């Protein structure tokens, strides 16, 4: 499986995710500057990494969503291949409208950087098919705008379609929902996918929970392996 990571000015998790993927999957990762208009490697997985693209000017992810590379990212996703947005990458995906919703400022008004726990809500997509539905995983968060917002009716539709992939949870009881969301995310939503299941956006950072000596935990490893396994079983 070939992976490409898009680098925007202000991305700061690009090398973390490159290392997490290349070390876990022993597969090549192409780094692509946002001013490019195509990928050199015909990737199977494109990742929009975390960070503060364009200094979060205007709205988080707004400028990056209009970068020259985005048309190639859109074509990649429309062909059914995997597209993953982590943190700022998720914000970029909502700004491109490839995923619904918006990420608003945390209810705490503060930047939150800490470990958090998520319940795997869905496995019928191209990313979490190798994880166990209902399992609790720990990926850290680090954001100021992580409150997932969608108007009431659209939110109900998203839930009905089973497109909530990760929800903030309590590791002791296994319960998940809004009261466990450190950022106030509606319905405790941490990650969602598109209808086809080939585009996933999430606020927490699996790549920070992959290289275990970084103290972010090691649950992220299974996430990358799940993607690779799904790719091996289903192909593109």
């Amino acid at each position, binding site marked *: 499986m070939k992976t490409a990571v898009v680098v925007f000015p202000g991305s700061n998790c690009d090398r973390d995710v490159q290392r997490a993927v290349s070390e876990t999957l022993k597969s090549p990762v192409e780094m692509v500057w946002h001013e490019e208009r195509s990928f050199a490697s015909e990737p199977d997985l494109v990742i929009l990494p975390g960070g503060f693209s364009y200094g979060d000017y205007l709205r988080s992810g707004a400028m990056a969503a209009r970068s020259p590379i985005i048309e190639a990212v859109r074509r990649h996703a429309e062909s059914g291949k995997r597209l993953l947005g982590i943190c700022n990458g998720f914000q970029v995906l909502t*700004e491109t409208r490839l995923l619904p919703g*918006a990420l*608003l400022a945390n*209810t705490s008004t503060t930047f939150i950087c800490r470990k958090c726990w998520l319940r795997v809500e869905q496995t019928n997509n191209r990313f979490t098919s190798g994880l166990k539905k209902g399992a609790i995983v720990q990926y850290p968060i680090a954001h100021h705008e992580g*409150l997932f*917002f969608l108007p009431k009716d659209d939110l109900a539709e998203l839930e009905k379609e089973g497109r909530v992939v990760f929800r903030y949870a309590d590791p002791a009881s296994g319960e998940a929902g809004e009261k466990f969301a450190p950022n106030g995310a509606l319905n405790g939503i941490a990650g969602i996918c598109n209808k086809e299941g080939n585009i996933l956006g999430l606020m927490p950072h699996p790549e920070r929970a992959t290289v275990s000596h970084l103290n972010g935990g090691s649950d992220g490893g299974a996430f990358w392996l799940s993607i690779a396994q799904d790719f091996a079983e289903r192909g593109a």
Partner: protein
Amino acid sequence: MLFHAETLITPRAGVLDTQGKAVEKTLGQLGYEGVSEVRVGRIVTMTLEAANAEAAAECVREMCCDLLANDLIETYSISVREA
């Protein structure tokens, strides 16, 4: 012709405005009573060339759709005057 355009972008009604809430709380702490519904938005100003004021306003509206505002969470109003 040259026009000045000013676009006021604010959070949509019903969309949580954390910044507005924080400002409202601080205003209360400063002793301002009876203040509610504080919303914090932003203003984008620019100079642009257009055939007339309507064309200038239409152009800025397109900019709002394309980049300046996110209509899922924000509303905007545009005012245009000759430069």
